[in-house]
């Protein structure tokens, strides 16, 4: 697959996504407010009940900032739901055409994935700027150019990692008819263990140790903490290396599953 094709695909996908979504901005803003509102009430109550100022290293106000950030970051890590879903390609037989193209399917899908999430990029930066300008940051959050730069790299890798995990799951469509029922389950696991539902530092110590050995934290918890300047450069480099190893691991698994799955494929739909 040539670089030119990669960006051409990305570009086209971004354009069609933008032209389709009249409701895009409205739904984004409403979703954001709803999700953040729920978190607001929940943590307000929790802090009040527990009578403590700090939970898992977070004060109430930095807890809010955590959620604000993680919701924003997740837009980029997860990307948008796409109609070019790998599972539906397999299920409906659109895969036929991609099998005929002299291109690498996974790379092609990744280009599409980046294209579809392009509007999320814009949202991320716009909301991000608003947040930084409008909100007083508590002093346990050290936003700096270095931390922002490191966070961008981290988020980029998180995006790849999430894509690969998702891809692996979707490839099971070669065997299972209704992969989408697994989607909710996947999101539950990933958001719980990755630091989307709760910051990982809120969990019991033992669980935290276990989570440290799993790939999920690289999706949300680690990018947020990197952005907040809580990760030293040395540790950051080490963690990035580990997250890249996870990416490689999932890539290899995906390839194996793809190979096995293609043997099952019957080219439905024609």
């Amino acid at each position: 697959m040539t670089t030119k094709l990669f960006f051409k695909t990305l570009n086209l996908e971004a354009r069609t996504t933008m032209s389709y979504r009249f409701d895009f901005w409205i739904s984004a803003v409403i979703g954001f407010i709803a999700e953040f509102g729920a978190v607001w009430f929940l943590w307000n109550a929790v802090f009040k009940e527990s009578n403590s100022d700090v939970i898992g290293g977070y004060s109430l106000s930095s807890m809010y900032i955590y959620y604000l950030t993680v919701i924003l970051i997740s837009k980029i890590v997860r990307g948008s739901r796409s109609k070019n879903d790998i599972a539906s390609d397999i299920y409906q037989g659109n895969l036929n055409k991609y099998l005929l193209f002299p291109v690498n399917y996974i790379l092609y899908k990744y280009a599409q994935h980046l294209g579809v999430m392009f509007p999320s990029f814009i949202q991320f930066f716009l909301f991000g700027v608003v947040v930084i300008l409008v909100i007083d940051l508590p002093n346990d959050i050290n936003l700096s150019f270095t931390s922002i730069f490191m966070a961008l790299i981290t988020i980029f890798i998180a995006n790849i990692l999430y894509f690969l995990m998702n891809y692996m799951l979707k490839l099971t469509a070669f065997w299972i008819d209704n992969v989408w029922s697994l989607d909710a389950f996947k999101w539950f696991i990933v958001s719980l263990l990755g630091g989307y539902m709760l910051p990982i530092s809120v969990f019991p110590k033992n669980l935290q140790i276990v989570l440290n050995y799993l790939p999920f934290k690289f999706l949300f918890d680690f990018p947020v903490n990197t952005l907040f300047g809580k990760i030293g450069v040395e540790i950051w480099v080490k963690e990035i290396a580990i997250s890249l190893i996870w990416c490689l691991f999932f890539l290899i698994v995906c390839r194996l599953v793809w190979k096995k799955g293609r043997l099952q494929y019957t080219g439905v739909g024609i």
Partner: protein
Amino acid sequence: MPLIKINNLHKKFRVHKKEEGFLGSLKALFKRQYIDKEAVVDVSFSVGKGEIIGLLGANGAGKTTLLKMLTGIIHPTKGNVEILGYNPWDRKNEFLKEISLIMGQKAQLWWDLPAADCFLLLKEIYVIPEKQYRETIEELSIKLNVKHLLNIQIRRLSLGERMKMELIASLLHRPKVLFLDEPTIGLDVKSQRVIREFILDYIKKYSPAVILTSHYMDDIQYLCERVLIIRSGKIVYDGLLTDLAQKYSPNKIIKAHFKEKQESLNILLDLQKYGEILHNEKEQIHLMVNRENISNTTNYLLEHYEIIDLSIEEVDISITIESILDNKKLDSINDY
């Protein structure tokens, strides 16, 4: 050297039986029942450069399944395929750049994009040189009269217009091996003709190896010399289209032009002894007669009636093919 070489190819589909009702689904959770379906059975043939093969068969005969194996979409259960020296299953880029599969049943172009954008994407996918790309688009879109439609989203085009775009798209990279799966399905007579002529044009210019399936005999007769007839996954005929009639149609048609209108019932009864009367209007009578009785019959006619003109023709090829497709005698019945 043949461009397409196929040896003892088999494909068996395994489908799990879906039982009816809720209880059935529950049972299937624990024990699935499978049915094996032999879609392609022991198929061997080869196709040379510039050769156009018509693949004929009833619905469900296994034509599309065969093409899917030849293009590397599905894995053969047994046997091997070699196209341009490659095994399609490996999906080597060099191989994929030389082939094309056109499916009349299913849109391959991107639904939301106008054709012009689709073509640009294909240009990058197949790494087509700028000059060749421009020339091809220009030439083909004028030939098919779709130049004014290039900037309209594919989903807004009519079936025929879309098919023309699909055709252009699949020829952009000038494939050396071309698979056409019912390219004219659902099109009106004029569009069918335009597309037929267009395909022939491409074939004359680039002499690819072509396998074409179609349920329209016109397509086959216009484009193919050699045909393969496939029945229940097996090839039952591989040879020239023109030989087909002689081999498989036991009958010919005698068309007699009488001097005056034959009204008496007698003559009709008389002729029915020789064959079946297909047509009887004014002075014309068409009689379907067994090959062996042709000379007897013509002699009889000429001796007993005043005839201006008399011709002997083959039965319409599509009738012959239909009878082959229906006829279970041609191979062992128990496999059917």
